[in-house]
C-alpha cells in the first residue's frame, strides 16, 4: 500500500490552512457508526461537525514531514498506525525511492 499526497493539498498544509485532525476523526467516527448500524444509505454528516472543516481554528504551517504524518493519520485507517506492532507498519520516503515496479514493491519488507 502506497499513499501519495496531492501537491495542492501539500501546499495547503504548508500554508497552515488545515484544521485539527480531530475534526476529520469526528466525521469518520460518525460515518463508521452509521455503516455499522446499517444506515449509511441515508447518512448525512451533522452540519456543525461538517462545517468545522472550515470553521475550526487552523493548526498553522506544517513542514513536509509533519504534513505527511497528518495525512497518514487522516487517510490511513487508524488501526494501522495507532497500534504498536512488533515491526514497522509504514515508512515515509521520497516518491522517487518507491519502487515503480509493483513486483519489486510488493516484495518490500520494512526492516526494524
Amino acid at each position, binding site marked *: *500500500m*502506497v*499513499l*501519495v*499526497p*496531492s*501537491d*495542492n*493539498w501539500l501546499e*495547503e498544509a504548508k500554508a497552515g*490552512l488545515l*484544521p485539527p485532525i480531530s475534526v*476529520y476523526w469526528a*466525521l*469518520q467516527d460518525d*460515518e463508521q457508526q*452509521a*455503516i*455499522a*448500524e*446499517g444506515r*449509511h*444509505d*441515508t*447518512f*448525512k*454528516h451533522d*452540519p*456543525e461537525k*461538517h*462545517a*468545522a*472543516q*472550515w*470553521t*475550526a*481554528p*487552523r493548526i498553522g504551517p506544517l513542514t513536509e514531514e509533519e504534513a505527511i504524518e497528518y*495525512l497518514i493519520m*487522516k*487517510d*490511513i485507517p487508524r488501526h494501522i498506525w495507532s497500534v504498536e506492532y512488533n515491526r514497522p507498519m509504514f515508512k515515509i520516503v521520497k*516518491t522517487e525511492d*518507491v*519502487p*515503480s*515496479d*509493483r513486483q519489486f514493491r510488493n516484495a518490500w519488507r520494512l526492516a526494524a
Partner: protein
Amino acid sequence: MAIKVNGTTVIDDSRALSNIASVDATTAASITAAGVGGGGGAGSTTAWVNFNGRGTVSIRNDGNVGSITDVGTGRFNVNFSTSLASANYSLNYTINSYSSVNASVGSQVEGYSGAAGATLMTTSAVRVTTASASANFDASHNLILATL
C-alpha cells in the same frame, strides 16, 4: 469567489472563510449547502482528480483530493481533502483505453454496499478499480469526479 456586502468586496477567496471570526457553524453550514467552493474550498461539494496509476501513483491535478492510496494492481483509494456532507454522491470514473485489453476494460467503484457492513464509498474516500475480463490493471489516465 468574491462576496460583496453593500457593494464592497469583503472576501476574495472562499477559503478565507475560516479566518472570519463571525461566521458561526449555522452560517457555514448554509454556505456548505449552497455549494460555495466546489474545488476544495469552504463548503466543497465536489472532488475530482486526474492521476497516473502506472508505476508509482502520481496526481496530475485535483480539486479537493488530498491523496491517493495504491492498494493493489488497478485498485486505488481516492481520499478527499474535506469530507462531503453526504455519502450519496454521484461518481464518474473514466480511464484511458489500454491496448492489450481495450475491448473489455471496466472502471468501477469497489465494495459499495447499501446494506449494513463495510462500504468503500464514504464521504471521505472512495475505492475505485480498473479491470479487464481477466484481471485488474493499472491505467495511466484515471479521471474521477465526485459530485454531491
